[in-house]
C-alpha cells in the first residue's frame, strides 16, 4: 500500500502511520535502490558488450597495434581490414555463400512448416501428438550425428559443395523449430475464423493467403528470425558439406591463421561483419521475440 500511494498526500500519511521511516528517509532509500539496480545492470551490460567492443576495437587497428600494446581505442584508426574484405572476392564470397544458403533455408522451411503447422493446429489425426513431439526430438540430437550420412549422401548424388546442400541440411533442425513456433501462433487464432471464411465462400488457399497469413504475421516474422539465427551460426554442417564453391564465412575466417601468424585485424573485421546481419534482424522482430521464445504460447 505504501509504495502505491507514495507520491500522494494520503500516501505520506499512511506511510507515517504504518512505518517509522519519514517520507524523506523513504525517498532517499528508494533512490538508493534505483541506483543500485542501475549500477548492477550497467556492470552486466558492460561485461556483455566488452568482447564485442574489443572485436570492434581490433577491427579498426593495424596488426602491429593489436600485438604491440593494449590500447582501449584505436590510436591509428584504419579501415584497411574492412577494405581488404570487401575487395577480395574470396572473402566477400563467404558472406554471399552464407546469406545464400540461409535465405534458401528460410524459404524452404517456411514453405514446408506453414502447412504442417496448420495441420497440427487445426486437425486431429492418428498419432498427431506423437508426431509433434517427435519433431521436437529432432532438435535434441546433435547435428554431428547426422554429419557423416549427409556427407555420404550428398557426395553420391552430386549435391556436395552447393548452397542447396547446406540449406537442406539445416532444415533438419529448422523445420521442427518453425513448426513448433508457428503451431503456437496458429492455435491462438480461433477456429471460427476459418469457418467464417468458408461460409463467406473463401476457398482454402485463398483463405490461407488472404486471411490467415496476415493474422500470424508477427509469428512468421519471429519464426524467420529464429531460422536465420540458427542457420547463420551453424558451422559444423555448413563447413563439412562445402569445399570451395559454397564455403560459409565462418570457414573462410579460419584462413586468417597462416604460417606467418594470425591476421588479427582482418579476423576481427570479419567478425564484426558477421554480427551485423543478426543485429539487423533482431531489430525488426524485437517486439515479438519474447512470444517467439514461448513458441507462440502466451
Amino acid at each position, binding site marked *: 500500500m505504501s509504495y502505491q500511494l507514495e507520491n500522494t498526500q494520503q500516501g505520506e500519511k499512511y506511510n507515517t502511520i504504518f512505518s517509522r521511516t519519514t517520507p524523506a528517509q523513504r525517498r532517499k532509500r528508494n533512490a538508493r535502490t534505483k541506483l543500485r539496480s542501475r549500477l548492477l545492470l550497467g556492470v552486466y551490460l558492460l561485461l556483455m558488450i566488452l568482447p564485442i567492443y574489443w572485436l570492434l576495437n581490433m577491427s579498426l587497428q593495424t596488426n602491429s597495434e593489436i600485438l604491440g600494446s593494449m590500447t582501449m581505442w584505436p590510436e591509428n584508426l584504419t579501415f584497411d581490414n574492412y577494405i581488404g574484405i570487401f575487395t577480395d572476392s574470396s572473402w566477400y564470397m563467404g558472406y554471399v555463400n552464407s546469406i545464400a544458403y540461409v535465405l534458401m533455408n528460410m524459404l524452404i522451411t517456411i514453405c514446408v512448416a506453414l502447412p504442417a503447422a496448420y495441420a497440427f493446429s487445426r486437425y486431429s489425426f492418428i498419432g498427431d501428438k506423437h508426431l509433434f513431439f517427435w519433431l521436437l526430438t529432432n532438435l535434441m540430437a546433435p547435428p554431428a550425428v547426422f554429419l557423416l550420412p549427409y556427407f555420404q549422401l550428398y557426395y553420391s548424388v552430386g549435391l556436395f559443395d552447393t548452397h542447396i546442400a547446406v540449406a537442406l541440411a539445416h532444415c533438419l533442425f529448422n523445420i521442427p523449430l518453425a513448426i513448433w513456433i508457428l503451431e503456437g501462433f496458429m492455435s491462438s487464432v*480461433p477456429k*471460427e*475464423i476459418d*469457418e*467464417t*471464411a*468458408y*461460409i*463467406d*465462400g*473463401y*476457398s482454402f488457399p485463398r483463405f490461407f493467403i488472404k*486471411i490467415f497469413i*496476415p*493474422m500470424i*504475421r508477427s509469428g512468421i516474422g519471429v519464426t524467420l528470425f529464429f531460422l536465420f539465427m540458427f542457420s547463420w551460426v551453424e558451422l559444423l554442417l555448413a563447413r563439412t558439406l562445402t569445399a570451395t564453391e559454397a564455403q560459409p564465412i565462418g570457414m573462410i575466417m579460419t584462413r586468417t591463421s597462416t604460417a606467418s601468424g594470425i591476421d588479427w585485424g582482418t579476423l576481427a573485421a570479419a567478425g564484426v561483419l558477421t554480427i551485423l546481419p543478426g543485429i539487423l534482424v533482431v531489430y525488426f522482430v524485437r517486439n515479438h521475440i519474447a512470444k517467439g521464445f514461448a513458441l507462440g504460447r502466451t
Partner: protein
Amino acid sequence: MSLHLQNIAHTVGGVPYISDVDLALEPGSFNVLLGRTLAGKTTLMRLMAGLEPPTQGRILMDGKDVTGVPVRHRNVSMVYQQFINYPSLTVYDNIASPLKLAKQPKSEINKRVGEIAEMLHIEHLLDRYPLELSGGQQQRTAMGRALVKDADVILFDEPLVNLDYKLREELRDELRDLFKVRNCIAVYATTEPNEALALGGNTAILHEGKLLQYGPTDQIYRQPNGILSAEMFSEPPINIVPGRLTDNDITFDNDTHFTCDDALRKLPPGDYQFGVRASHLSLTPQAADDLELPVTVDVAEISGSETFLHARHAHFPLVLHLLGIHELKVNQPIKVYFPIHKLFVFDQQGHIVHTPLAQTEGAAHG
C-alpha cells in the same frame, strides 16, 4: 427456400451430441433454438451450415439433398457468439468480403455495404479495423457480413451473449425488424427463454441433443408438451408440484383436499405432477376457487419493483414471482394461493395431460 433436417443424429468421439432430430423450417421463418448449454444448439447449427456432416440422417434444402455439400457451396451465413471478424481487413472489407468472393460488380458491392452499414449504424466506422472497435460494433460488423449476402439460411449462435444488456435489447429489436423484409430462414440460438419470447417466430426446444417441441413461440409457451419444455421455457422456472387427483378433489399432501374444477374432473384419478407458473401464484386470493397452501419463507429476493419469493411447503419448494416489494422474514409462515384454472397437469412420465385455457393475462412473461 425451406430447410428440412431428417432424423439427424450426430456423435463426436462416441458421445451423442444430437440424437434423432427431425425439424422442418419454413421459408421466411424466424426460428429460435432454445436450450441450456450442451443442449446441442451449436452442433445443430453447424450441421445446418454444413460445417460438419451429420453422422446420420439427411438435410434437405428446397427438397434437394445437401447433406454432403460443403459449406462453401451452400448459401448460408453465420454469426458466432465470439466476435469473429477478419482482423487484417477493414470493416468495409469485412462486410464486403462475401460479395467480393461472389464476384459482384464494384458499384453493387459499394451500395450493399453502405445499406447494411447504415442499417446496423456502423457507417462511420467503415475505414476502421475490427480490433479498434467496441464489442457491440465488432458484433455488428460480423452481423453485417452475415446479412450482406442473400443467404438462404442465416444462423445466429447466441450472438448477443457477450454484449451488455442495453445493447442486447437494442440489437435484438433491430434484428427482428431486419428479418421482416427478408425471405430467408433465420435460426437464432439462445439460452434465455425471455429472448425467445421477445423474438417471437417459431421456437424449437432442445434438451440434451433431443428436440422436445417445435412450433410458434407463444403457442409453446402456452402449451408445453411436457415438464421439460415447460421448465425450459420460463424464467423463473415453472413450479412442479406432485399431487393426487381423485374423483372430485385434488390434494398435494394427502391432508388438505380441494375441490376440482370441471376441467380437472375429466382426468382419470391418480398421481400427477402439477405445473404452476411463478407469476400465477399470489399472496392474496385472486379468485374464489384459488387453492390455499401454507408455506414458510426461505428467502425473498427483491429486484427492483419485483420480488422473487422462495418458499417451502412440507412436500415441495415453490417460487413466486410477485409484483411490488414484499419484505418477508425467513421461516415466516405465510399462505400462498394457486389459481386452480391455471394449472398444467403432467403425468408421471412428464407428458402433458391438461393445459389451462388460453388466458388473457397481463403478466404473461413470467
